[in-house]
């Protein structure tokens, strides 16, 4: 089983390893302790102390805060329970006219705004563009990854998390109190 020291993994993550070395790592059997080292590297790079349970994207993490598991941006902004799609707590900007699209796509590159809208999800804390969706009107936002954290830690990593919770999508439940206000 391969093993890499933290400094080499940091160079891999930062895109600094020579391509030939990256290919060796790709072809070798995977290192069993990658996850632990990955989390350690990322934990050292964020300015907050809550332990990372799972990295979600380049900017977002599921962390443990007290007895809660929440989504947190690297900047520190918190999005709430990881079982609720974090997009509900993000800023959104939608491009749905030719003019709005033209800031990104012009001329022959422009999609048809009656077929599709471009949704940009931004972190209210740091202004990072977290995800972009290109979907027709009516499409609920994708809840890309809902990990089964307890199964992962208990059965796959062999170190159960305290305070197990049911792995279920809580997005609709979170929206239950959203009132429809007449325009």
């Amino acid at each position, binding site marked *: 089983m391969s093993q890499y020291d933290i400094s080499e993994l940091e160079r891999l993550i930062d895109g600094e390893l020579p391509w030939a070395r990256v290919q060796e790592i790709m072809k070798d059997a995977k290192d069993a302790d990658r996850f632990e080292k990955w989390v350690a590297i990322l934990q050292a790079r964020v300015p907050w102390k809550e332990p990372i349970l799972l990295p979600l994207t*380049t900017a977002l993490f599921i962390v443990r805060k007290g007895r809660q598991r929440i989504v947190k941006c690297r900047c520190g902004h918190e999005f709430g329970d990881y079982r609720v799609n974090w997009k509900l707590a993000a800023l959104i900007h939608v491009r749905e006219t030719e003019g709005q699209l033209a800031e990104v796509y012009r*001329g*022959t590159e422009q999609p048809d705004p009656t077929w599709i809208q471009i949704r940009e999800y931004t972190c209210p804390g740091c202004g990072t*563009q977290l995800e972009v969706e290109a979907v027709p*009107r*009516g499409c609920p936002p994708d809840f890309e990854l809902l990990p089964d954290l307890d199964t992962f830690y208990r059965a796959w990593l062999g170190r159960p998390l305290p305070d197990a919770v049911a792995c279920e999508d809580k997005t609709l439940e979170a929206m239950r109190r959203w009132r429809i206000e007449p325009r």
Partner: protein
Amino acid sequence: MSPKQPKQALPRRKTKTGAKPKARKAAQRGTAGRAPARESLRAQLERNDRLLRETGYLFGLEEMQRKQEDPGTYEAVWQILLNICNTAHAVGCRVSSSPIAAEGGDALWSLHLPTGEAVCTSRGIVSHPGLLSLLLRSYIEAGYEDDPGIRAGDIYENNDPHFGGIHSADFQTTVPIFWNGRLIAWAGSVTHVMDAGFVLPGSIGFMNPDCFSDGVPVVAERVGENDHFYPWYEKRMRSRTRVPDWTMGDARGRLAGCLTIRDRVLALVEKYGLDFFADVTREYIEDSRRYAISRVRTQAVPGRIRKSNFKDLAMAGKRVLLPVQNVDCLFNLPLEITIDVDAKVGISLQGASGWVPFGQNITPDALVSGMLNAYSHIVGFDMFNWGAAAAWSLVEPPAGSWANPYPVNYFASSGVAWAPAVVWMSSLYEAFGRLYWARGFVEEVAAGAATTMTAEFSGTNQYGLYTAGLTLEQACNGGPARGIADGETSAWCIYTPNADFGNAEVTELYYPVLYLGRNVEPDSGGYGKFRGGLGHTAVWLVMNTPGIEYQCGCAGIRSKLCGNHGMFGAYPTWPDRPAYASGTNLKELVAARQPLLHERGDPEHPNIARNLQADVIEPNLIAPFVTPEPLHEWDVIVHPVSGSQALGDPLEREPEFVQQDLDDGWGQERVAADVYGVVAKFDEGERRWSVDVAATAQKRAAIREERKQRGVPFREWWQAERERILAKENMADAVLAMWRSSMELSPGYAAELRAFWKLPDDFTF
């Protein structure tokens, strides 16, 4: 109205589920799952299914004795089999004279167990081993062993999606391998022919309205014996395909490769013994299943992954075949993956939209094979064979959807069934990329695939002969962005790791066109911290012909839309937009030594309109289409081939990468400034760009601030968006029709959509 499928013709499918690893010891211990000498194929099939069900291991192989006893020989024989299959690929492609096989290598040869499961495959189109496996299984289930009987020297073939094909341009040839009178394996092959006898010329049958226009049928039948095709087989190809020399060249190539496999496998059995051969071939398949499972377990995370995706097929107002086709279609291509505690992967397409009156419907069996293709790239590529298919299960797609049309419309066309599937599969790359990212395997992340826009020519060629066929441009597009680097440019293709677009000079020998350009297309890999590999644009000058048709085909494109990719905050690649001009002044421009047309140029002022004068100039077409009139000498085509998807916030792209793309002519100044937030200026003296690092940091901070200002809280947007949905505001008819069919075919999906927007229970679009 399309008729319901006759009951007796239901395609039989078995979804492998419910494996129980803790079941009793393998019943066949000591014989490693191999079949008793006189057991019928049907009995072997039933036993294999039962053993998997009861033990959780393919063929009941709880232990892999040959591997344990002698891992060196086990590995060596695998390499020999791999060599045998690749030799068959080399032989078959050379025997075939068709550009697709001979120049593009876009074909496949494989070795199978007597019961069909693929053991080992060649390079080439890796989407086919699963289909060949299920096709062979279907022969056994249909009782072919007794009637008509399977004998040494027989050639069985199929191209009918009703009976195990993907689309009729892909011919599947299988040859049994006998040893001392006993069937011990099959050799199989698939090639994509140049013309399948569709209602229109070529092999990308997007325009076919129903299966009766899907060309020459070969329906799971014996097409030859004693290693020879029947004379009537060739007669059929000669009268029912447009370029029969190529079609028959492919047939002979498939057969030659299969016979190559047969002869070499028999030599291998001679050397190692039948028992060893029977044991290891089964162990290789179980090994692959275990590999796929363990790779998911060591690299992914259990839970649920969802990814929407959509694909357009806008045909209203274009040249079509039947009035019913005068319509714009939008496909809903949803993906939901669940990974359970045992690392078993479940895949669902709940919400898939309905079948279409075009050749873009696919069967669940073909989707399974497509999945195997995706797995070969991203999950299990150590020993590539049927084994990975037992590591996941596909929930039966909604009956009547593009992914399962026959229960509702048995006459649905699969002229290019691959088209929606390949776009759907792109989601699979991103989905697994997200899982690998979570686990820290950043080097395995792939942000999503490029698209597959084809170019076919038909008419009289430079030799005065009729021709019809496909160029291979689309087989070589950009590779997906990784978690740590840009994707490779013009280097990759979702459906074949061969990724060979052939030589321009050779393509010019096949078709009456000359390349004016084959250039990397700037900024065609999305915009992100890491961009996808870039695609390229072919510019063709029509020459030495009295007239040819250009079919700009959809084998998996988006022309109205962007893909729903943009992983981790990147922007997705733009839509596929070809162009052409006819009645041009190019001849005069050449004589006057004026600038010609070599690339697409500025998207707002494409070169085709800027440099040329012509009777017809179409600079920004919605694909796919067939030219309304034949093209003639000095007419010109601009055919872009897409790049792949990007990853990460574009403001996090290293400014020096942006500068490098500017220097190489691979990036546009506007995009560098507006999307990447890079302040750069061109140094006329040094002929290169330089970045103002401090100004770039300032500009990027300002853009981030601007995002925060213009972004609205999601809930606020949700309120307003809900009203616009109720009013169906700014929604094309195709969008409304798509939602209606998705919601009708998948009530659970509909309920969730209504619940999210708090729409009335009876709401429809």
